[in-house]
């Protein structure tokens, strides 16, 4: 009974606001999960904002198709097409479209004059970059599939195997590139990585043809399936880091 006589001072308006804000900040994850955040962001921003450079991207897709076709044709002239294993070509060149997208349109570039203005917005460049990279990887997968279908007209290829091989290559490369983009900002490193991937595979297939083909062709289909899933999961983890880590974590 004695306690009921004790007066508890009523908090001031500003204190109440602070307490509510702290409870909400600490207690709720307003950003929900990866996919629902992406969906909400897409609904709020729309395609034209997330891909404000859509025209340039379309040019890049066309350019990438021309470059890859040209490369394949000139390689065919130089190295005698029939001597080359078609699966080697698929594995080596599958990340090219993604590489072009990621290199030119990652958008998280500190050198960009609009960087500071865009970084202090509610949806900043990290979040846009995450959405775009995911889209780029899916578009690259589709472009690769079209290439495989194209190759099937001339070569005897097992589509399922070629698709898994291409997707393994794509996501393995995408994972490495994404982490380079997250932690090393230099464009030169990205370029070296791309050159390294292409040259490494070409040289390995020339100088160690037997071993390279054994690795490439003797690995069972389900292992490739697991590589695709595994690398895609790691890739999503990287994108999640872009999306949800606090500005400080991402910049450190």
């Amino acid at each position, binding site marked *: 009974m004695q306690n009921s006589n004790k007066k508890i001072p009523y908090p001031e308006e*500003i204190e109440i*606001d*602070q307490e509510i*804000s*702290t409870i909400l*900040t600490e207690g709720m994850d*307003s*950003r929900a999960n990866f996919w629902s955040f992406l969906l909400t962001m897409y609904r*709020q*921003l*729309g395609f034209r*904002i997330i891909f*404000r450079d859509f025209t340039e991207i379309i040019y890049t897709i066309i350019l990438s198709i021309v470059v890859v076709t040209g490369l394949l044709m000139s390689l065919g002239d130089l190295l005698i097409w029939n001597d080359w294993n078609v699966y080697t070509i698929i594995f080596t060149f599958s990340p090219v479209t993604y590489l072009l997208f990621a290199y030119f349109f990652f958008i998280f570039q500190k050198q*960009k*004059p*609009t*960087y*500071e*203005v*865009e*970084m*202090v*917005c*509610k*949806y*900043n460049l990290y979040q*846009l970059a995450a959405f775009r990279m995911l889209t780029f990887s899916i578009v690259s997968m589709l472009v690769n599939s079209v290439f495989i279908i194209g190759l099937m007209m001339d070569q005897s290829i097992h589509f399922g195997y070629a698709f898994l091989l291409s997707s393994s290559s794509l996501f393995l490369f995408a994972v490495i590139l994404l982490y380079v983009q997250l932690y090393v900002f230099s464009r030169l490193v990205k370029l070296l990585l791309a050159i390294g991937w292409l040259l490494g595979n070409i040289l390995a297939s020339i100088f160690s043809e037997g071993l390279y083909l054994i690795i490439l062709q003797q690995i069972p289909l389900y292992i490739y399936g697991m590589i695709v899933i595994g690398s895609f999961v790691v890739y999503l983890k990287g994108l999640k880091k872009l999306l949800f880590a*606090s*500005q*400080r974590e991402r*910049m*450190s």
Partner: protein
Amino acid sequence: MLVIENVSKQYGNFQALNSIQLEFQNGIYGLLAPNGAGKTTLIKMIATLMFPTKGEILYNGTNIVALDDKYRDVLGYLPQHFGYYKNYSPEKYLFYLAALKGLDKSTAKQRINELLTLVGLEDVTRKKMKKFSGGMIQRVGIAQEMLNDPKVLILDEPTAGLDPKERARFRKILTSLARDRIIILSTHIVSDVESIANQIIMIKEKKVLYQDTVAHISNQLKGMLFETEVSLAEEDQFRDNYQIIGERQEQEKLIFRFVAEQRLEEAWQEVIPTLEDVFLHVYEDDQTLAGSMK
């Protein structure tokens, strides 16, 4: 309320800011210091573009890092070099930024019309910005930072490149915005903030030297600032003995505005110190600055 709590920033071995302690309520704050004093570093930390090596920045009691996008939701920022897409019109660019700031289309449309009128760009809303003057671009910058009706407005050297008329216009706009928000304006131009800032913050040797009103800071030199005529023959000796704040030539004489501990001669006329006098006095011997005046 925004609180800078014991914040230090270090780049490798270089200490840019040391134990900065500041508090901001609604109103205009002029962050005044010469180039190289650490203004932009402090501004970028408040804008979450950089993070303190030590200490924290609190908005309404919560660390701005923890608030993350909730803090950016109430933040408006005009960087020193305002970047834009040259082929965009102000309207298109503002729509783009409004979307990134989470505004829905109809709110954005109304807000953009209001803001472009406020900054006097209502006649060129659909003209490409590549044809704009520096002053017009800066006005687009002011409009963009107000899109989300921010509670914390940060402007880094906002008057760079503006002519005197545009500076006056800019000050007028800021005053009209200051009622219900915190405005932090970083500048090395005293006249930008002298007439509009509720408080002035001066940083020296990596630390806060003053956070006070213009009148109080100006009073630091009360009774110590004088003007007198000096003949050309006495000029060098006079310069050696006193800290000269300003000077002008009239016929064969020089009129010096200078600082002295006390009035030593009848001819000396005590003058009322201004913020600029204090600024020049404080930073005259600061050798640590990139743009040191000596």
